[in-house]
């Protein structure tokens, strides 16, 4: 607190008081309203608190997730917290569930059929699982004749991934396979008989597994 300019201290402390009783991330807008200050000031104050906690090496930290500020335990003390909170740890998602979640996250709003088209298999079961976990929810209906339900990710999804908004997802472009990989795939798909699979090609690309 002492690092803050004197006139900011009371406001910063008021923020701390509200955040300590909050059960969900609190939006900067609501905080601004409560303290009767601007949203920019809220962001500035929270930034100052955050770096203060960091410098003082506190056991908690202030983060912005799912569009709001919240206090949480510092990852460095995970072992103690885990010992303290026995259950609650949500089960990790399987590879298939994560892949479907990634598709919904990047392509939302998206229908079951569109997810299935990308994954190449029926996605109903996985989407039901993700919905029951609260990561994904129906956000609307398609205009088309079938009026398919469209799905999007939830605030819980952002919270669980520690993201402020879906705009903070790493750009999809960086995951597109590089040219060499695409060319290798294309070679395999080539049907011409006079282009047998060359053994000398094998070193060009290593399997990732």
């Amino acid at each position, binding site marked *: 607190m002492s690092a803050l300019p004197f006139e900011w201290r009371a406001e910063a402390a008021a923020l701390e008081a509200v*955040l300590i*009783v*909050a059960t969900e991330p609190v939006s900067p807008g609501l905080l601004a309203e409560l303290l009767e200050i601007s949203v920019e000031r809220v962001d500035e104050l929270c930034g100052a608190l955050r770096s203060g906690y960091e410098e003082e090496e506190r056991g*908690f*930290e202030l983060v912005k*997730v799912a569009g709001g500020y*919240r*206090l*949480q*335990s*510092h*990852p460095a003390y*995970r072992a103690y917290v885990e010992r303290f909170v026995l259950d609650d*740890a949500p089960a*990790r*998602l399987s590879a*298939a569930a*994560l*892949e479907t*979640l*990634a*598709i919904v*996250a*990047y392509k939302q709003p998206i229908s079951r059929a569109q997810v299935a088209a*990308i*994954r*190449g*298999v*029926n996605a*109903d*079961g*996985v989407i039901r699982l993700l919905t029951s976990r609260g990561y994904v929810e129906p956000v609307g209906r398609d205009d088309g004749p079938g009026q398919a339900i469209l799905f999007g990710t939830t605030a819980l999804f952002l919270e*669980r*991934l*520690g993201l402020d908004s879906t705009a903070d997802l*790493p750009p999809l472009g*960086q*995951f*597109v*396979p590089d040219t060499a*990989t*695409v060319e*290798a*795939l294309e*070679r*395999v*798909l080539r*049907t*011409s*008989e*006079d282009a047998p*699979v*060359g053994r000398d*090609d*094998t070193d*060009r*690309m*290593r*399997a990732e*597994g």
Partner: protein
Amino acid sequence: MAYEVHIDVFDGPFDLLLRLIGAQQVDVYEVRLAEIVDGFLAETRRIGELDLELATEFLLIAATLVELKCRRLLPGQHDADLEEDLALFEARDYLLARLVECRTFSGAADVLGKLELAASRSLARRAGPDERFERRAPDLLAGVTADDVVAAARRALAARPPEVVPTAQLVRDEVSVQAALDELVVTLPEKGTMTFRDLTARSASTAHVVACFLALLELYKRAMVDLDQVGTFGELTVVWTAASPTGPGEVPVDDDDQLVAAPARASGARHVPDGSGS
């Protein structure tokens, strides 16, 4: 958990095989799909229950392998006319685009998994206001009576339709009436009398139940069983009436109803009668 294949040319997780083929380290030509499918079925039998996610993953990769293999087996471009050429290119581009898209999202999924893992190291404060603020919060149960609570409980406990596991598309074309018939002619003489419910209690899919039902009709047509049902939707009792036990394969089915084509869409499965009610 990933399903692993054990075949002559390869030993390891299935998706790795796909990647190796992509990297041209294993020739798709040398991969016998039947061997892989048999291995998978054996594994499924060993586990005892069908892991839907595993099976789905298996199908996705198997389908891609089949497509890859088809490309390799197709005749060279010299034999095809222009139109077929174009169709081939189109199909190839489509497949390539799909593979690239799949890879893109599996890369994104890896990163999401890492984000999730990192975020799980912190736990949010969720204590809420302490008792000093209790009286400030409005009473959420104002006007709610015990009758409202029991009504809500009934709604919650009874209103949800039973979960229908869409296994139908996983067994498409693999469930045959003949196979069901072969099972029945072994099981029924042994038991003499059975209800249809017991008969199909261990069916893995709706399609298998349907196959059993069709097989029963076949046996009924041949006067080998007697069927008895007390009223609509009542229990269906099956009595073996044929003189001597018959071995598998000895009662052939007409080719027409050989295969039970399960509905392609999972939602369709809900409308397939479970047989016990007709």
